[in-house]
């Protein structure tokens, strides 16, 4: 071939390859969207134009959005359905308050309502209020320690030492464990699992971890971690690890985005998260673009992320289903919109 002809032929070929790849990506994302679109509902906080946050119900693909609350004087944050999905816990925070990325559980008051956030009643300050597996109790974390309340009466049934926990305490689906972020061995931001009965605890992940949550099987945890092996400040990624500690696995990472708020689907096959350009989950601003991926496709690396791809050479490029800007989503397979 005459050399001068290579360039004009290479360009269209390259363009074709790129367009084809993009189309393949789009198709993969569309396949994922169709896969999850009817798998129950997601409730999340979305910031309104007037400045407060309201609860919004949507399908897992972000469609069929409807507001569950519309309260200019209040922000409703961090909703969680009860295990039977008949009730909702969320925090009510005075509008105008900047919602803390990591201390939101101390802000405002805990509200209990029905599955669609109707008939809500403030049950107390109850920091980090979280459902027990049978929905009859609520765990809380405060200076006093870990308190387990009767959900109906709000009375404290049991108190435990908090053993270094300082935020984000969540009860495992099988009722046996707490997870949370703790101070351990002089190091902060350590994910710790605690036996609910004995109070004994173990480290799940050390060094710069945040927003832990349970897998449905109660055997594994999803959490955010900003590894040390990065240039400069680094980027926060989504990871998982066994509850007893041990080998961690990256689920999603993307240079240029901080990944927080990991939440599993009820069957443990998918994970929701937020991708924020600045550190934090976006609650201090207007939320962050959401994302949804299959666990089976992990690890996935978004963007160029050159150094990260070298560390995880077998990582996939996707698919990741983009979701609206949101914060702290929670997923149920129950048809919460039906009369029950």
């Amino acid at each position, binding site marked *: 071939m005459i050399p001068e002809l290579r360039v004009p032929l290479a360009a269209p070929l390259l363009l074709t390859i790129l367009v084809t790849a993009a189309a393949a990506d789009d198709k993969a994302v569309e396949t994922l969207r169709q896969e999850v679109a009817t798998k129950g509902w997601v409730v999340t906080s979305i910031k309104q134009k007037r400045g407060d946050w309201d609860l919004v119900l949507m399908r897992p693909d972000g469609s069929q959005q409807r507001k569950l609350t519309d309260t200019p004087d209040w922000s409703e944050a961090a909703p969680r359905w009860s295990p039977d999905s008949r009730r909702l816990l969320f925090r009510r925070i005075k509008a105008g*308050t900047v919602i803390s990325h990591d201390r939101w559980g101390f802000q405002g008051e805990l509200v209990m309502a029905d599955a669609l956030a109707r008939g809500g009643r403030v049950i107390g300050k109850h920091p980090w209020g979280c459902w027990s597996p049978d929905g009859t109790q609520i765990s809380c974390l405060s200076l006093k320690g870990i308190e387990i309340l009767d959900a109906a009466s709000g009375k404290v049934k049991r108190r435990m030492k908090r053993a270094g926990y*300082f935020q984000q305490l969540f009860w495992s689906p099988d009722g046996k464990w707490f997870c949370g972020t703790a101070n351990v061995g002089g190091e902060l931001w350590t994910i710790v699992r605690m036996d609910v009965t004995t109070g004994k605890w173990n480290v799940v992940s050390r060094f710069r971890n945040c927003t832990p949550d349970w897998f449905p099987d109660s055997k594994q945890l999803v959490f955010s971690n900003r590894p040390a092996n990065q240039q400069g400040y680094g980027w926060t990624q989504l990871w998982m690890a066994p509850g007893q500690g041990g080998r961690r696995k990256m689920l999603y990472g993307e240079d240029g985005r901080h990944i927080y708020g990991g939440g599993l689907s009820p069957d443990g096959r998918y994970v929701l998260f937020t991708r924020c350009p600045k550190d934090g989950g976006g609650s201090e601003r207007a939320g962050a673009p959401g994302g949804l991926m299959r666990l089976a496709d992990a690890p996935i690396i978004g963007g160029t992320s050159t150094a990260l791809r070298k560390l995880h050479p077998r990582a996939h490029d996707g698919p990741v289903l983009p979701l609206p800007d949101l914060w702290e989503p929670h997923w149920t397979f129950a048809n919460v919109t039906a009369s029950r």
Partner: protein
Amino acid sequence: MPQSQTPETDSAEVPSPADPISGRGGSTAARWILLAVVVVPVIAVAVATGLRSGLSRNRHDGTDSSLADQAGTEGQVTTAGRFEVTAKLIELPGAFLPNDGLYNYAFVLKYEVLHVHRGGDAVGKVIHVAHYNPRKTRARVGDEFYPDLGGTVDRFRAGDVHRLAMEEPWDEHYIGPLVDRYHETSGKRLYWAIWSNAVGDGR
């Protein structure tokens, strides 16, 4: 009349028991008694006070406690918490973490106690104190979660002397990330700093 040539004997008065001169002698005794009863105790008190002051000045650190009592008393340092000390910051055990407008934490510093204002014998000679967000000036460190914190310390430097109002145990007053480079020091009491005033450069 002729002048006598022989002087005549002065009819000087000779005291007699009934003489007023005997009354003057009693007054003198009374004066001495008054002196003993009033003046001596006054002198004794003055001496005792002086001795006590001298003893105070001669504390182990050699500082003048009268001055120590007055230094760094701005704001709530004399009323907040149950413990109050003047102490020298021994060292900075590593860099403070950035806040970046996002994260908040407490950082443990080690002090040599120079003077205990409140807390008595419960306060040791070396103490560990958790300070909230040490990168911030104490005047601006109070926030939504810990509004009662304050002081005049602008920055933490090894060797500086601070007057601290504190509470303990720390985890009954603070719940949050804690950077403790002394975590392996067994048996230490960790205080939570409520008010931190600058006293001076101890170097």
